[in-house]
Protein backbone atom coordinates (compact mmCIF):
# COMPACT_ATOMS: atom_id res chain seq x y z
CA UNK A 1 0.00 0.00 0.00
CA UNK A 2 2.80 2.43 0.88
CA UNK A 3 6.25 2.03 -0.49
CA UNK A 4 9.31 4.12 0.30
CA UNK A 5 12.06 3.73 -2.29
CA UNK A 6 15.66 4.77 -1.66
CA UNK A 7 14.60 7.55 0.68
CA UNK A 8 17.27 9.88 1.93
CA UNK A 9 16.69 12.95 4.06
CA UNK A 10 19.29 15.59 4.81
CA UNK A 11 18.70 18.46 7.23
CA UNK A 12 21.27 21.19 6.70
CA UNK A 13 24.33 18.97 6.55
CA UNK A 14 23.25 16.01 8.64
CA UNK A 15 21.94 12.88 7.03
CA UNK A 16 18.83 11.92 8.99
CA UNK A 17 17.52 9.11 6.81
CA UNK A 18 19.55 7.02 4.43
CA UNK A 19 18.81 4.16 2.14
CA UNK A 20 15.26 3.59 3.37
CA UNK A 21 13.46 0.91 1.38
CA UNK A 22 10.32 -0.31 3.02
CA UNK A 23 6.77 -1.33 2.13
CA UNK A 24 3.76 -1.14 4.41
CA UNK A 25 0.98 -3.57 3.56
CA UNK A 26 -2.75 -3.06 3.84
CA UNK A 27 -4.14 -4.01 7.24
CA UNK A 28 -0.70 -4.31 8.76
CA UNK A 29 0.22 -2.69 12.07
CA UNK A 30 3.87 -1.69 11.99
CA UNK A 31 5.65 -0.44 15.08
CA UNK A 32 8.86 1.56 14.73
CA UNK A 33 11.27 1.66 17.65
CA UNK A 34 14.73 3.11 18.07
CA UNK A 35 16.78 5.58 20.09
CA UNK A 36 16.08 9.29 20.20
CA UNK A 37 17.30 11.05 17.07
CA UNK A 38 17.40 7.87 15.00
CA UNK A 39 14.99 9.33 12.45
CA UNK A 40 11.71 7.64 13.42
CA UNK A 41 9.62 10.81 13.29
CA UNK A 42 11.26 11.93 10.10
CA UNK A 43 10.49 8.58 8.46
CA UNK A 44 6.85 8.78 9.54
CA UNK A 45 6.54 12.37 8.40
CA UNK A 46 8.02 11.47 5.04
CA UNK A 47 5.18 9.04 4.45
CA UNK A 48 2.59 11.84 4.31
CA UNK A 49 5.13 14.35 3.04
CA UNK A 50 5.24 16.66 6.04
CA UNK A 51 8.92 16.22 5.30
CA UNK A 52 9.93 16.25 1.69
CA UNK A 53 12.55 13.58 1.03
CA UNK A 54 15.88 14.84 -0.26
CA UNK A 55 16.18 11.75 -2.45
CA UNK A 56 13.94 8.86 -3.36
CA UNK A 57 10.23 8.37 -3.91
CA UNK A 58 7.10 7.59 -1.97
CA UNK A 59 4.41 5.44 -3.60
CA UNK A 60 0.89 5.35 -2.27
CA UNK A 61 -1.18 2.54 -3.76
CA UNK A 62 1.30 2.29 -6.63
CA UNK A 63 1.04 6.01 -7.42
CA UNK A 64 4.19 8.06 -7.08
CA UNK A 65 3.58 11.01 -4.79
CA UNK A 66 4.25 14.27 -6.63
CA UNK A 67 5.52 17.37 -4.90
CA UNK A 68 2.52 19.50 -5.77
CA UNK A 69 -0.51 20.57 -3.80
CA UNK A 70 -3.15 18.32 -5.35
CA UNK A 71 -1.11 15.14 -5.06
CA UNK A 72 -0.17 15.91 -1.47
CA UNK A 73 -3.71 16.77 -0.43
CA UNK A 74 -4.97 13.47 -1.80
CA UNK A 75 -2.20 11.59 -0.06
CA UNK A 76 -2.82 13.27 3.27
CA UNK A 77 -6.55 12.62 3.37
CA UNK A 78 -5.71 8.93 3.14
CA UNK A 79 -2.65 8.87 5.38
CA UNK A 80 -3.38 11.08 8.32
CA UNK A 81 -1.26 11.70 11.35
CA UNK A 82 -1.62 11.59 15.13
CA UNK A 83 1.04 13.72 16.80
CA UNK A 84 2.91 13.42 20.04
CA UNK A 85 1.69 16.88 21.12
CA UNK A 86 -1.89 16.33 19.85
CA UNK A 87 -2.12 19.57 17.85
CA UNK A 88 -5.85 19.87 18.24
CA UNK A 89 -7.23 23.09 16.78
CA UNK A 90 -7.24 25.35 19.82
CA UNK A 91 -10.01 27.67 18.71
CA UNK A 92 -12.54 24.92 18.05
CA UNK A 93 -14.67 22.57 20.13
CA UNK A 94 -14.06 18.83 20.28
CA UNK A 95 -16.79 18.14 17.73
CA UNK A 96 -15.66 20.91 15.36
CA UNK A 97 -12.12 19.53 15.48
CA UNK A 98 -13.57 16.27 14.21
CA UNK A 99 -15.80 17.72 11.49
CA UNK A 100 -13.45 20.29 9.95
CA UNK A 101 -11.67 17.78 7.71
CA UNK A 102 -14.77 15.84 6.61
CA UNK A 103 -16.69 19.03 5.78
CA UNK A 104 -13.91 21.02 4.13
CA UNK A 105 -11.92 18.24 2.50
CA UNK A 106 -14.33 15.36 1.99
CA UNK A 107 -17.18 17.81 1.28
CA UNK A 108 -19.59 15.99 3.57
CA UNK A 109 -22.83 17.68 4.64
CA UNK A 110 -22.61 18.97 8.20
CA UNK A 111 -25.14 16.54 9.66
CA UNK A 112 -23.42 13.58 8.02
CA UNK A 113 -20.03 14.72 9.28
CA UNK A 114 -21.37 15.31 12.78
CA UNK A 115 -23.04 11.94 13.01
CA UNK A 116 -19.89 10.16 11.90
CA UNK A 117 -17.70 12.29 14.17
CA UNK A 118 -19.90 11.45 17.16
CA UNK A 119 -19.54 7.78 16.36
CA UNK A 120 -15.75 8.12 16.36
CA UNK A 121 -15.81 10.19 19.56
CA UNK A 122 -17.87 7.47 21.17
CA UNK A 123 -15.29 4.92 20.10
CA UNK A 124 -12.58 6.82 21.99
CA UNK A 125 -14.92 7.57 24.88
CA UNK A 126 -15.08 11.31 24.30
CA UNK A 127 -18.59 11.82 22.96
CA UNK A 128 -19.75 13.41 26.22
CA UNK A 129 -17.20 16.19 25.72
CA UNK A 130 -18.24 17.15 22.20
CA UNK A 131 -18.98 20.81 23.00
CA UNK A 132 -15.92 21.46 25.13
CA UNK A 133 -13.14 23.72 23.92
CA UNK A 134 -10.13 21.50 23.50
CA UNK A 135 -7.80 23.40 25.81
CA UNK A 136 -10.00 22.49 28.77
CA UNK A 137 -9.19 18.79 28.32
CA UNK A 138 -6.50 16.66 29.94
CA UNK A 139 -3.63 15.32 27.84
CA UNK A 140 -5.11 11.84 27.59
CA UNK A 141 -8.47 13.24 26.56
CA UNK A 142 -6.83 15.46 23.96
CA UNK A 143 -5.00 12.55 22.43
CA UNK A 144 -8.17 10.48 22.28
CA UNK A 145 -9.91 13.35 20.47
CA UNK A 146 -6.93 13.57 18.10
CA UNK A 147 -7.35 9.88 17.32
CA UNK A 148 -11.07 10.41 16.70
CA UNK A 149 -10.22 13.36 14.45
CA UNK A 150 -7.94 11.12 12.38
CA UNK A 151 -10.63 8.43 12.20
CA UNK A 152 -13.28 10.84 10.91
CA UNK A 153 -11.34 11.12 7.69
CA UNK A 154 -11.80 7.37 7.21
CA UNK A 155 -8.15 7.21 6.16
CA UNK A 156 -6.48 4.16 4.69
CA UNK A 157 -3.63 4.46 7.13
CA UNK A 158 -3.02 6.30 10.39
CA UNK A 159 0.48 7.40 11.31
CA UNK A 160 1.11 7.73 15.05
CA UNK A 161 4.18 9.58 16.26
CA UNK A 162 4.79 8.67 19.91
CA UNK A 163 1.16 9.22 20.84
CA UNK A 164 1.73 8.59 24.55
CA UNK A 165 5.08 10.31 25.10
CA UNK A 166 3.67 13.70 26.06
CA UNK A 167 1.22 12.24 28.57
CA UNK A 168 1.39 12.08 32.35
CA UNK A 169 1.94 8.52 33.40
CA UNK A 170 -1.60 7.95 34.68
CA UNK A 171 -3.05 8.87 31.27
CA UNK A 172 -0.92 6.60 29.16
CA UNK A 173 -3.17 3.61 29.70
CA UNK A 174 -6.39 5.20 28.41
CA UNK A 175 -4.66 6.16 25.17
CA UNK A 176 -2.98 2.75 24.86
CA UNK A 177 -6.40 1.10 25.21
CA UNK A 178 -7.85 3.41 22.56
CA UNK A 179 -5.07 2.58 20.11
CA UNK A 180 -5.49 -1.13 20.74
CA UNK A 181 -9.19 -0.76 20.06
CA UNK A 182 -8.53 1.06 16.78
CA UNK A 183 -5.91 -1.51 15.78
CA UNK A 184 -8.36 -4.34 16.40
CA UNK A 185 -10.57 -2.96 13.63
CA UNK A 186 -8.05 -3.87 10.96
CA UNK A 187 -6.87 -0.39 10.05
CA UNK A 188 -3.41 -0.02 8.57
CA UNK A 189 -1.19 1.70 11.10
CA UNK A 190 2.40 2.81 11.40
CA UNK A 191 3.24 3.70 14.95
CA UNK A 192 6.37 5.08 16.55
CA UNK A 193 6.39 4.31 20.25
CA UNK A 194 8.48 3.62 23.31
CA UNK A 195 5.59 1.69 24.91
CA UNK A 196 6.82 -1.88 24.60
CA UNK A 197 3.63 -3.21 26.12
CA UNK A 198 1.59 -1.47 23.41
CA UNK A 199 3.96 -2.63 20.68
CA UNK A 200 3.71 -6.23 21.85
CA UNK A 201 -0.07 -6.04 21.95
CA UNK A 202 -0.71 -4.70 18.47
CA UNK A 203 2.33 -5.15 16.22
CA UNK A 204 2.23 -7.39 13.16
CA UNK A 205 5.71 -6.16 12.45
CA UNK A 206 8.43 -4.26 14.29
CA UNK A 207 11.13 -2.11 12.71
CA UNK A 208 14.20 -1.03 14.65
CA UNK A 209 15.91 2.14 13.46
CA UNK A 210 19.28 3.55 14.41
CA UNK A 211 21.19 6.50 12.99
CA UNK A 212 18.81 7.03 10.10
CA UNK A 213 18.79 3.42 8.95
CA UNK A 214 16.47 0.48 9.26
CA UNK A 215 18.59 -1.98 11.21
CA UNK A 216 16.11 -4.76 11.74
CA UNK A 217 12.67 -5.42 10.23
CA UNK A 218 10.81 -8.37 11.75
CA UNK A 219 7.43 -10.04 11.48
CA UNK A 220 5.31 -10.32 14.64
CA UNK A 221 6.98 -9.27 17.87
CA UNK A 222 9.85 -11.74 17.83
CA UNK A 223 12.30 -8.88 17.86
CA UNK A 224 11.64 -8.37 21.56
CA UNK A 225 12.52 -11.93 22.49
CA UNK A 226 15.06 -12.83 19.82
CA UNK A 227 16.72 -9.70 18.41
CA UNK A 228 19.14 -10.59 15.62
CA UNK A 229 21.33 -7.55 15.45
CA UNK A 230 23.73 -6.45 18.14
CA UNK A 231 22.50 -2.83 18.02
CA UNK A 232 18.90 -3.99 18.55
CA UNK A 233 19.92 -6.08 21.55
CA UNK A 234 21.72 -3.18 23.15
CA UNK A 235 18.78 -0.85 22.58
CA UNK A 236 16.25 -3.29 23.99
CA UNK A 237 18.41 -3.90 27.04
CA UNK A 238 18.64 -0.18 27.67
CA UNK A 239 14.90 0.48 27.50
CA UNK A 240 13.83 -2.53 29.56
CA UNK A 241 16.06 -1.52 32.44
Amino acid at each position, binding site marked *: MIELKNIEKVFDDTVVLKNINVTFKKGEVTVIIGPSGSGKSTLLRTI*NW*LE*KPTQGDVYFEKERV*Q*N*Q*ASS*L*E*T*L*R*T*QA*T*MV*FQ*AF*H*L*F*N*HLTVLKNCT*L*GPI*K*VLKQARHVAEAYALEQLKKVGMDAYKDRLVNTLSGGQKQRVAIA*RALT*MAPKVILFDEPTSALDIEMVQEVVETIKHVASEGLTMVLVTHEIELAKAIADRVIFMDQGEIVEDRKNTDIFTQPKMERTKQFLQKITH
Partner: protein
Amino acid sequence: MFLASFFSNIVTMFQNNYDLFFYGLRMTLILAFVGTGVGLLIALVLAYVKVQEITTSQRFKAFLQRILQGFAYGYVGFFRGTPMIVQAMLFYYGMQRMGFDIRVLTAGLIVVSLNTAAYLTEVIRSGLNSLDKGQKEAGLSLGLSMRQVYILILYPQALKNMIPAIGNELVVNIKDTAVLSVIGVSELFYMGRRVGSASYLFTEAFIIVSVMYLVIVSIAMTMLHRLGNGNPRKRERVMP
Protein backbone atom coordinates in the same frame (compact mmCIF):
# COMPACT_ATOMS: atom_id res chain seq x y z
CA MET B 1 -8.83 88.95 32.65
CA PHE B 2 -6.66 87.54 29.93
CA LEU B 3 -7.64 83.97 30.79
CA ALA B 4 -11.31 84.78 30.88
CA SER B 5 -11.29 86.31 27.41
CA PHE B 6 -9.14 83.46 26.16
CA PHE B 7 -11.68 80.90 27.31
CA SER B 8 -14.62 82.86 26.04
CA ASN B 9 -12.86 83.06 22.65
CA ILE B 10 -12.63 79.31 22.58
CA VAL B 11 -16.26 78.86 23.49
CA THR B 12 -17.42 81.38 20.93
CA MET B 13 -15.24 79.87 18.26
CA PHE B 14 -16.65 76.44 18.95
CA GLN B 15 -20.22 77.72 18.98
CA ASN B 16 -19.74 79.48 15.65
CA ASN B 17 -17.85 76.67 13.93
CA TYR B 18 -18.94 73.44 15.57
CA ASP B 19 -20.31 72.17 12.25
CA LEU B 20 -16.88 72.52 10.67
CA PHE B 21 -15.11 70.87 13.58
CA PHE B 22 -17.54 67.96 13.63
CA TYR B 23 -17.30 67.59 9.88
CA GLY B 24 -13.54 67.34 10.28
CA LEU B 25 -13.93 64.84 13.08
CA ARG B 26 -16.24 62.74 10.95
CA MET B 27 -13.70 62.71 8.13
CA THR B 28 -10.95 61.76 10.55
CA LEU B 29 -13.00 58.84 11.85
CA ILE B 30 -13.92 57.69 8.37
CA LEU B 31 -10.28 57.78 7.33
CA ALA B 32 -9.15 55.93 10.46
CA PHE B 33 -11.80 53.20 10.42
CA VAL B 34 -11.84 52.58 6.68
CA GLY B 35 -8.04 52.74 6.57
CA THR B 36 -7.66 50.23 9.37
CA GLY B 37 -10.35 47.91 8.00
CA VAL B 38 -9.23 47.90 4.38
CA GLY B 39 -5.61 47.89 5.50
CA LEU B 40 -6.30 44.77 7.55
CA LEU B 41 -7.83 42.97 4.57
CA ILE B 42 -4.87 43.82 2.36
CA ALA B 43 -2.49 42.84 5.16
CA LEU B 44 -4.08 39.40 5.50
CA VAL B 45 -3.22 38.72 1.88
CA LEU B 46 0.26 40.23 2.04
CA ALA B 47 1.15 38.34 5.22
CA TYR B 48 -0.01 35.11 3.60
CA VAL B 49 2.23 35.77 0.63
CA LYS B 50 5.14 36.68 2.85
CA VAL B 51 5.11 33.67 5.18
CA GLN B 52 4.79 31.01 2.49
CA GLU B 53 7.71 28.68 2.16
CA ILE B 54 8.20 27.83 -1.47
CA THR B 55 8.19 24.06 -1.56
CA THR B 56 6.32 23.08 -4.70
CA SER B 57 8.19 21.37 -7.52
CA GLN B 58 6.03 23.08 -10.14
CA ARG B 59 8.39 25.61 -11.70
CA PHE B 60 5.81 28.14 -12.80
CA LYS B 61 4.01 28.16 -9.46
CA ALA B 62 7.26 28.60 -7.59
CA PHE B 63 8.26 31.43 -9.93
CA LEU B 64 4.95 33.17 -9.39
CA GLN B 65 5.27 32.81 -5.63
CA ARG B 66 8.72 34.35 -5.75
CA ILE B 67 7.47 37.34 -7.74
CA LEU B 68 4.60 37.87 -5.31
CA GLN B 69 6.92 37.60 -2.36
CA GLY B 70 9.30 40.12 -3.86
CA PHE B 71 6.39 42.48 -4.35
CA ALA B 72 5.22 42.01 -0.74
CA TYR B 73 8.68 42.75 0.62
CA GLY B 74 9.05 45.82 -1.58
CA TYR B 75 5.60 47.05 -0.64
CA VAL B 76 6.12 46.77 3.09
CA GLY B 77 9.59 48.26 2.82
CA PHE B 78 8.36 51.27 0.90
CA PHE B 79 5.36 52.10 3.06
CA ARG B 80 7.20 51.67 6.33
CA GLY B 81 10.31 53.40 5.04
CA THR B 82 8.74 56.68 3.89
CA PRO B 83 6.54 59.19 5.77
CA MET B 84 2.80 58.98 5.08
CA ILE B 85 2.80 62.67 4.22
CA VAL B 86 5.19 61.92 1.37
CA GLN B 87 3.14 58.93 0.26
CA ALA B 88 0.05 61.13 0.14
CA MET B 89 1.73 63.75 -2.04
CA LEU B 90 3.23 61.15 -4.31
CA PHE B 91 -0.01 59.28 -4.76
CA TYR B 92 -2.31 62.27 -5.19
CA TYR B 93 -0.11 64.20 -7.60
CA GLY B 94 1.01 61.00 -9.29
CA MET B 95 -2.59 60.16 -10.09
CA GLN B 96 -3.19 63.68 -11.38
CA ARG B 97 -0.14 63.47 -13.56
CA MET B 98 -1.35 60.20 -15.03
CA GLY B 99 -4.61 61.88 -15.90
CA PHE B 100 -6.83 60.44 -13.15
CA ASP B 101 -9.09 63.09 -11.68
CA ILE B 102 -9.17 61.55 -8.23
CA ARG B 103 -11.02 63.16 -5.30
CA VAL B 104 -8.85 64.09 -2.35
CA LEU B 105 -10.93 62.01 0.04
CA THR B 106 -10.57 58.96 -2.19
CA ALA B 107 -6.84 59.55 -2.42
CA GLY B 108 -6.66 59.94 1.35
CA LEU B 109 -8.58 56.72 1.97
CA ILE B 110 -6.36 54.81 -0.42
CA VAL B 111 -3.14 56.16 1.07
CA VAL B 112 -4.10 55.46 4.67
CA SER B 113 -5.28 51.95 3.72
CA LEU B 114 -2.11 51.12 1.84
CA ASN B 115 0.02 52.55 4.64
CA THR B 116 -1.84 50.67 7.37
CA ALA B 117 -1.62 47.46 5.36
CA ALA B 118 2.18 47.62 5.48
CA TYR B 119 2.27 47.92 9.28
CA LEU B 120 -0.43 45.31 9.85
CA THR B 121 1.33 42.88 7.52
CA GLU B 122 4.20 42.76 9.99
CA VAL B 123 1.80 42.45 12.93
CA ILE B 124 0.01 39.52 11.30
CA ARG B 125 3.22 37.92 10.23
CA SER B 126 4.56 37.85 13.75
CA GLY B 127 1.15 36.67 15.01
CA LEU B 128 1.31 33.76 12.58
CA ASN B 129 4.90 32.98 13.48
CA SER B 130 4.01 32.83 17.16
CA LEU B 131 1.56 29.98 16.57
CA ASP B 132 2.78 26.44 17.15
CA LYS B 133 3.80 24.96 13.83
CA GLY B 134 1.91 21.81 14.81
CA GLN B 135 -1.37 23.63 14.10
CA LYS B 136 -0.41 23.96 10.46
CA GLU B 137 0.87 20.41 10.23
CA ALA B 138 -2.29 19.02 11.81
CA GLY B 139 -4.36 20.90 9.24
CA LEU B 140 -2.23 19.75 6.34
CA SER B 141 -2.29 16.16 7.51
CA LEU B 142 -6.09 16.17 7.24
CA GLY B 143 -5.66 17.05 3.57
CA LEU B 144 -6.59 20.73 3.88
CA SER B 145 -4.97 22.99 1.29
CA MET B 146 -2.51 25.60 2.48
CA ARG B 147 -5.05 28.34 1.90
CA GLN B 148 -7.67 26.48 3.95
CA VAL B 149 -5.15 25.96 6.74
CA TYR B 150 -4.62 29.70 6.93
CA ILE B 151 -8.26 30.72 6.66
CA LEU B 152 -9.75 28.03 8.88
CA ILE B 153 -7.03 27.45 11.46
CA LEU B 154 -4.19 29.95 11.61
CA TYR B 155 -5.89 33.32 11.00
CA PRO B 156 -8.67 32.77 13.54
CA GLN B 157 -6.10 31.95 16.20
CA ALA B 158 -3.65 34.68 15.23
CA LEU B 159 -6.29 37.40 14.92
CA LYS B 160 -7.48 36.83 18.45
CA ASN B 161 -3.98 37.55 19.74
CA MET B 162 -3.66 40.52 17.46
CA ILE B 163 -6.70 42.54 18.53
CA PRO B 164 -4.62 44.89 20.73
CA ALA B 165 -2.13 45.55 17.95
CA ILE B 166 -4.89 46.22 15.42
CA GLY B 167 -6.56 48.56 17.90
CA ASN B 168 -3.29 50.34 18.38
CA GLU B 169 -3.11 50.84 14.64
CA LEU B 170 -6.59 52.37 14.70
CA VAL B 171 -5.54 54.87 17.37
CA VAL B 172 -2.40 55.72 15.43
CA ASN B 173 -4.56 56.30 12.35
CA ILE B 174 -6.93 58.65 14.19
CA LYS B 175 -3.94 60.83 14.97
CA ASP B 176 -1.76 60.37 11.91
CA THR B 177 -4.42 60.97 9.28
CA ALA B 178 -3.83 64.64 10.17
CA VAL B 179 -1.03 64.57 7.62
CA LEU B 180 -3.57 63.99 4.86
CA SER B 181 -4.51 67.66 5.17
CA VAL B 182 -1.47 68.22 2.99
CA ILE B 183 -3.44 67.10 -0.07
CA GLY B 184 -6.52 68.96 1.13
CA VAL B 185 -8.53 66.25 2.87
CA SER B 186 -10.82 68.19 5.18
CA GLU B 187 -10.24 66.17 8.31
CA LEU B 188 -10.00 67.55 11.83
CA PHE B 189 -6.53 69.09 11.59
CA TYR B 190 -7.40 70.74 8.28
CA MET B 191 -10.57 72.19 9.77
CA GLY B 192 -8.65 73.51 12.77
CA ARG B 193 -6.33 75.36 10.45
CA ARG B 194 -9.20 76.68 8.40
CA VAL B 195 -11.13 78.02 11.38
CA GLY B 196 -7.93 79.37 12.92
CA SER B 197 -6.85 81.24 9.83
CA ALA B 198 -10.26 82.88 9.41
CA SER B 199 -9.78 84.69 12.72
CA TYR B 200 -6.02 84.36 13.28
CA LEU B 201 -6.84 82.63 16.57
CA PHE B 202 -4.75 79.53 15.86
CA THR B 203 -4.09 78.71 19.48
CA GLU B 204 -7.78 78.63 20.33
CA ALA B 205 -8.59 76.58 17.24
CA PHE B 206 -5.97 73.99 18.02
CA ILE B 207 -6.97 73.74 21.65
CA ILE B 208 -10.41 72.72 20.39
CA VAL B 209 -8.85 70.32 17.92
CA SER B 210 -6.62 68.81 20.63
CA VAL B 211 -9.55 68.24 22.98
CA MET B 212 -11.53 66.56 20.22
CA TYR B 213 -8.62 64.26 19.33
CA LEU B 214 -8.11 63.44 22.99
CA VAL B 215 -11.74 62.60 23.60
CA ILE B 216 -12.02 60.39 20.54
CA VAL B 217 -8.73 58.60 21.19
CA SER B 218 -9.75 57.96 24.81
CA ILE B 219 -13.06 56.50 23.72
CA ALA B 220 -11.31 54.28 21.18
CA MET B 221 -8.79 53.08 23.75
CA THR B 222 -11.46 52.31 26.35
CA MET B 223 -13.44 50.31 23.82
CA LEU B 224 -10.37 48.39 22.77
CA HIS B 225 -9.43 47.68 26.33
CA ARG B 226 -12.88 46.16 26.90
CA LEU B 227 -12.64 44.14 23.72
CA GLY B 228 -9.19 42.93 24.72
CA ASN B 229 -9.82 41.79 28.27
CA GLY B 230 -13.52 41.26 28.70
CA ASN B 231 -14.21 43.20 31.88
CA PRO B 232 -11.68 46.04 32.30
CA ARG B 233 -12.54 46.68 35.97
CA LYS B 234 -11.54 43.21 36.97
CA ARG B 235 -8.20 43.80 35.35
CA GLU B 236 -7.56 47.09 37.09
CA ARG B 237 -8.01 45.42 40.44
CA VAL B 238 -5.18 42.97 39.90
CA MET B 239 -2.82 45.68 38.74
CA PRO B 240 -0.35 46.85 41.40
